Every structure is written in structure tokens, then in C-alpha cells.
């Protein structure tokens, strides 16, 4: 099972599409590793410095409709090779969300008010998130402040995370 805890990168915008996560010009790569340095290269977000701000981050927290647009799983892979296996958002585009779980990664939705609170309390601080998958709890910590957030994922999504992805799951079952 992959790691779902670590330092948090906040992306305070709706509708971040997969062209922004990994531009199409890199789709000619046939190794996941080659995508690593290009993650979020074209994101439209004031003040964001892609290569610097991504460093040492393991979790992304963002707003609505993350991963919309192109179906490219390269978006999930570009996160994966940067050791980011968990994205938390108010909502996801369907294909991106499925790609994450298919790779044994997680795309977790939280209610709008919870997301607002997380952004308000943590977005401007160095923040650490710890995932307790078996208890469905995130602990979000910055300085002295800690927030406990419960989440839910379906049994199917959990099975994909536990088995390592959809290929393993489907191959053993169908």
C-alpha cells in the first residue's frame, strides 16, 4: 500500500485540469519517471512556483473539479513519481478520480465547509497531514494547531487501495 501522509501542498483554485497538471507535450514520454519534473508546470495560479513549491510535499489539498479535462493518467502518474499519492478536494472529475484509485492512490472528497475551514486554518502555514486509513481519519497539523477530519471512501475504492490498483483487483476477479 502506498504512503498517504506528509507535507501538504495547497492549490487554492477550482477546475484545475489535467493539461495544467501535466501538459500534453509530455505525453510522448513512455516512462512515468520522465513526467516528474513537469508536474503542474502550466498551472494558472498566482505566485505558484511549480518546481519549488512541490518539493517534499506528499499531499495536495485543492478545491472543486480537480483533474477535469483530458483522461490522461499521466496526471496521476506525475503525482505518483513525486510521492504525492493523496489529493483531497471538494470534488473531482470522474476520470481523474478513477485513475487515482486505479493506481492504488487516493482522491478523497470532503464537504465544502470542511474544505473552507482547512484552507482558512492551514493554507498559509507549513502543514502536515497524517492519514489513518483504517479509521477514516486525517490529522492535519500546523504549528500548535491540529484538526481531526473524518472521511469516507467506498468499499470498492478501499479494495483498490489495499490491493494496489484495478489491474490486480480485476485480474484476480474477472
Amino acid at each position, binding site marked *: 500500500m502506498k504512503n498517504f501522509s506528509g507535507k501538504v501542498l495547497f492549490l487554492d483554485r477550482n*477546475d484545475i*485540469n489535467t*493539461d*495544467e497538471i501535466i*501538459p*500534453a*507535450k509530455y*505525453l*510522448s*514520454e*513512455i516512462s*512515468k519517471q520522465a513526467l516528474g519534473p513537469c508536474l503542474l508546470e*502550466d498551472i*494558472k495560479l498566482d505566485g505558484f512556483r511549480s518546481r519549488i513549491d512541490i518539493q517534499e510535499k506528499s499531499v495536495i489539498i485543492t478545491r*472543486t*473539479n480537480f483533474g*477535469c*479535462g*483530458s*483522461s*490522461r*493518467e499521466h496526471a*496521476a502518474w506525475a503525482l505518483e513519481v513525486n510521492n504525492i499519492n493523496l489529493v483531497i478536494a471538494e*470534488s*473531482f*472529475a*470522474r*476520470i*481523474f478520480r*478513477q*485513475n487515482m484509485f*486505479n*493506481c492504488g492512490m487516493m482522491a478523497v472528497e470532503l464537504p465544502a465547509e470542511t474544505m473552507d475551514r482547512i484552507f482558512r486554518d492551514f493554507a498559509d502555514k507549513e502543514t502536515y497531514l497524517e492519514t489513518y486509513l483504517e479509521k477514516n481519519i486525517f490529522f492535519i497539523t500546523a504549528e500548535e494547531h491540529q484538526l481531526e477530519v473524518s472521511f469516507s471512501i*467506498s*468499499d*470498492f475504492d478501499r*479494495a483498490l487501495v489495499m490491493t494496489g*490498483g*484495478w*489491474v490486480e483487483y*480485476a*485480474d484476480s*476477479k*474477472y
Partner: protein
Amino acid sequence: MGKTIAEKIFDAHHVDSPAEDIHVIRLDAVFCHEITTPMAINDLVRRNKDRVFDTNKIKAVIDHVTPAKDSKTAEQGKILRDWARRHNILDFFDIGRNGICHVLFPEKGFVRPGFTVIMGDSHTCTHGAFGAFAAGVGTTDLEVGILKGVCAFHYPSTIKINISGQMPEGVFAKDIILSVIGCLGVNGATNKVLEFTGPIVDAMTMESRMTLCNMAVEAGATSGICLPDMTTVEYLWEFIENEYSDKKEALDDFSGFSSDSDARYDQVIEHDVSRLEPLVTFGYKPDQVKPVKEMEAIKVDQVYIGSCTNGRIEDLRVAARELAGQKISNSVRGIVSPATPKIYRQAMEEGILKIFLDAGFCITNPTCGACLGMSNGVLAQGEVCASTTNRNFNGRMGKGGMVHLVSPATAAATAIAGYITNSSLFKG
């Protein structure tokens, strides 16, 4: 309680429900192209599972970058080509026979009413125009599709868009779908199927229905879908005439995949097009739309006519009507890419290519290239393109470039003027 067409298709393809609301369905067609498939192929080889579930149900094409532009894209083509050969995939379309997947595969009769279709490409929703459930997926779903012939989805919940009214002259399917996306927003249909019905859709050609369904994903939808009718039968007839005694019998058969009058919808939206004008996007999201007349005088550096949205013969015909006897502006680079060799040939035989050439357009071979900024028309920093494609995302057609999505008629008029403007076909 009746059922929607999407629900009926799911029920007919049910394999398993591994969790509440998750349905694993059997696939009738798995489409592959050279950008998202090679990683699936390599992974299957790595796992020692280099097999395909059904040689006849897998169709493959090299379309995104063709001819290959560099060693990397040549390698992607080679991986797909070698795989198709060793698995004896007969419907593999390489250079000379290749075209844009979502135009080529329908043209070959590969999609039928009631089918389930996946492809590692978000615009797979296009094929819903035939009354199929067709969804774009990532490479892992594609990989499992190739290996096992199944895919997992949420049981479909449908938003019905009932399109009615009097279609104004000079307004096209592209303008309708832009207006629908403008109403729904870019995530207004996430996890939903968009079912397009009503007298306007009934009167549409299959090409226009494909344009409509093609952009369903821009509102977040899993699939667009139209109900099969005699127009569907006519389009498919050359491929199915041995299966039915006459067209009526085919229609009766296809009608099994239609929505019941008492089917339950997530939402029903009445969309009257009587006052619709040609539309254009502004900004970086496809739901940011305005009437063309409000964007007049925005200068463009490039006009692109093509793609899985608007590279079909009727699109080229409309553009040619506007371009006939005209020259495009000196400040504009005009690029047209007929979406398949068949369309290319039709356009040649109908004199449409001559009109484009005389007007000053460059005619490229069929390819997706420019739409996603991979080849054949990439923008430079700060450049503006009026394009008949489907995404105006930041950097989509080239880093720092601006894309305004329009219909082929508006694109042609814009090429002549040098700035965004309505076509002479629109009398409003």
C-alpha cells in the same frame, strides 16, 4: 418505473457489483490510440499478461501525432503497431489509412446502438451519438479493458437535455453544445450521462449529434447519448444490411435501446435554441461562452478547423461556403485538418480542398495534433487561435497561447476578417 437508455445498456452488460452503485460491465468495443495505450501495453508485458480479451473488439489507430514528429512519438507508434500485429488486431489504422479516432471509428461502423465503449481518451463520449454508452477512461481502465473486456462505472444517472425551438440559420451543433456547457458549467454533469433529445436533435445528422456528444465531457459528463432512430440506421446501413431484412427491422431492434417515457432523470433541462446566436469561448474554461458579436475585434493569429469535434465533412462544407471566393487575412495562419482519409477524399472530390487552398489555408493530413498542442499548429507565447476544437485550457494549443472555441462557420469568417466575427451564414 421505466429506465433510461444508459440504464438499459448497463443492465444488458452487467457482470458484477463489487460495491453498492459500482457496476462492472462487459465491453463491446475497446478503442486504442498511440498516446495512452503504449503504457498499458508495456505494463501488460511487464506483468507477463500480454494478452487481449477479443481481437475483434479492439480497434486501434495512430492519430495524435502522425506522421511521427520525433523519436519519442515514433516509438509510441511502434509500440502500438507491433502490439496490433502480434495480437492480430485487424482493425489497426496506420498512416495512409488513419484518422481521428472519434471520427474514423464511427465512419467504419464500429459503434452500434446499445454498445458499451471505452477508450483512453476523454472525448470517447462522442460515440454516444449512436445510442451507445461510451466513456473516456485512463490507461489502467484501458489496460483492464484490453485484458478482460470489462470496466467499472457508477450506475448511470442521467441529465436529459431536451433541445427544441426553431434553429436559427447560421447556428450549428457546436453553438448548441457550447450553450449547454455554458448553462451546466464545467462540472455540472460530473458522473452523469447527458442524454440529448428533442426535435432539434431528431432533425440532426449523425455528424452533428457527434459534435453534440463530443463535448459532453466538457461539462464533466461520463457519456453523451442520443436515442437511436432512422438517421442512426441510415448512417450504419452499409455495415448492417446483412443483419436485417430492411431498415425498419433494424430500427425496431435498435429501439430496444431507447429511454422509457417514465424513466427517472437526475434533471431535465429544456433548452430552446430559437434565440441562440453563434458562440465563442473566452477565458480558459469551456463554460465561459459569449455571443460572437460581443467578442468582435479580438484579433487572431491562427484559425484551426478540424478535430474530433468539428473535422467532419459537414464541418468542412460549412466552412467552404463561407470561404468560397475569399482570401483569408494576411495576418492569419489558416490550418484545416480533414479528420479522416474518407473526409479528405470527399472534400477533394467536392472541390472543398480547392476552396481552402485558394483562400490561403494549409491543409494537413488527418490528425489530432494541434488540438492538444502536440504538433501541426502549436501556438507561440501570446498568440491567439480561433479553433473548432473542444478545449480552451491554459496552454492547451501551446504554452502561453489563447484558444477561442467556435463553430467551423465562425472559424472561417474569422480567418477572412483576421478577428473574431460572425459568418455571413448567420442572419441575426
